[in-house]
């Protein structure tokens, strides 16, 4: 895989229809009702973690990606004002479900950028990306304008305080903070693909960038995922403008 492939997703990615196992009872949560106790080895300095509530508008846009049929419960969110939400640092539960072994799993979205680089490297290994030095990975995350993550938090039935937290997705954007942003390194754990999570990740990232008035959002897509991004609103070669790479290593 070329080392410049920045938005490569493994070929097993399926987006629609999303797969909802008939074995688990799924409940979709809108508001985070308790603070999360998540330990990270690397914190991005200036971001504050703030628990905030989802807005109905955003939820509508990803609901279609996560729900397959009416057997899944959807909880309508309380209305929230625009000002309460800091789009650069949000955290909320995307999905909550009970697994066959009675474990409760929550998929949590966060744009605060708290990523453990060891977890990230393990995730990159899972999808088959070439290894990159950890210090450089950490620096790249620090220098990114926004880092969005998906974590799975599992609680065993009957056990108190025994959470299993796992990084299952990430996307980041670099930007000049004014005009342009470019999305890199979009990644979803293969075991969590096909559920609309990648789509949710990008949609939220885009929304946060647009809210910051950054009008030009771009990315470079491997040929296999061009359609994925088209479905999210990206256009290849708009007006004939082409992405060019300097001496790419094939």
């Amino acid at each position: 895989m070329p080392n410049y492939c920045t938005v490569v997703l493994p070929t097993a990615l399926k987006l629609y229809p999303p797969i909802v196992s008939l074995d688990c009872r799924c409940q979709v949560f809108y508001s985070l009702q308790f603070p999360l106790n998540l330990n990270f080895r690397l914190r991005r300095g200036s971001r504050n973690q703030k628990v905030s509530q989802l807005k109905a508008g955003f939820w509508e846009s990803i609901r279609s990606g996560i729900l397959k049929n009416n057997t899944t419960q959807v909880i309508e969110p309380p209305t929230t004002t625009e000002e309460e939400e800091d789009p650069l640092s949000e955290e909320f539960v995307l999905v909550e479900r009970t697994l066959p072994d009675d474990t409760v799993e929550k998929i949590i979205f966060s744009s605060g950028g708290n990523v453990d680089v060891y977890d990230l490297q393990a995730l990159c290994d899972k999808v088959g990306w070439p290894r990159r030095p950890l210090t450089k990975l950490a620096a790249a995350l620090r220098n990114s304008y926004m880092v969005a993550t998906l974590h799975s938090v599992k609680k065993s039935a009957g056990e108190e305080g025994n959470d299993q937290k796992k990084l299952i997705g990430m996307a980041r954007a670099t930007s000049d903070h004014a005009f342009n942003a470019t999305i890199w390194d979009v990644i979803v754990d293969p075991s969590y693909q096909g559920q609309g999570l990648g789509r949710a990740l990008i949609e939220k990232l885009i929304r946060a960038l647009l809210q910051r008035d950054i009008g030009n959002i771009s990315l470079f897509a491997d040929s296999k995922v061009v359609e994925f991004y088209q479905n999210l609103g990206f256009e290849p070669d708009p007006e004939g403008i082409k992405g060019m790479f300097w001496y790419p290593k094939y």
Partner: protein
Amino acid sequence: MLLHNQISIALRTPLVPIKSTPKYNPKNAAVFAQQRNPPPPATNFSISDETLSSRGFTLHRTMDNLDLDHLNTVFVAVGFPRRDTGKIRVALEHTDALLWVEYEKTKRIVAFARATGDGVFNAIIWDVIVDPSFQGIGLGKAVMERLITALLEKGITNIVLYSEPRVMGFYRPMGFVADPDGIRGMVYSRKQKKKK
């Protein structure tokens, strides 16, 4: 100047067989742009710093003394939209590398280019402009060569840009390749969002 091939590149597991490539020969630079080895470094700029200086041009590598209104004027002259200078300042403050050329006689900016990125893996080059009255004499190339060298010196090996169709011939001889391996540049468009 650092040699490009001395900059350590992260270890990669080659997933594709590595093809052998011929040695770089400056005479067939345009053809070589299609090959995979980058050129030798900066001591071989097409126009040297001294030549630029002797022709009355000064190179700058920081925002200091850059008149943003003059910059905006050049943007408009080449067909970019006029932009809020406050926003331009913010953009330049969050830029990894920039280069501009000043014409001594008028004390005005005549060429400019900048690059944003994460500072370690990727850099994207934006806003490459040359005042129309000064085009065709090598200033754009001079700015690009130095910008690329500055990025390589930081260890950034993935250097990309978005090129309008009519200037692809400007970037190609410098070593830029469009859609390598089928990778497409994509831009978010609010107008045509599809929902599935």
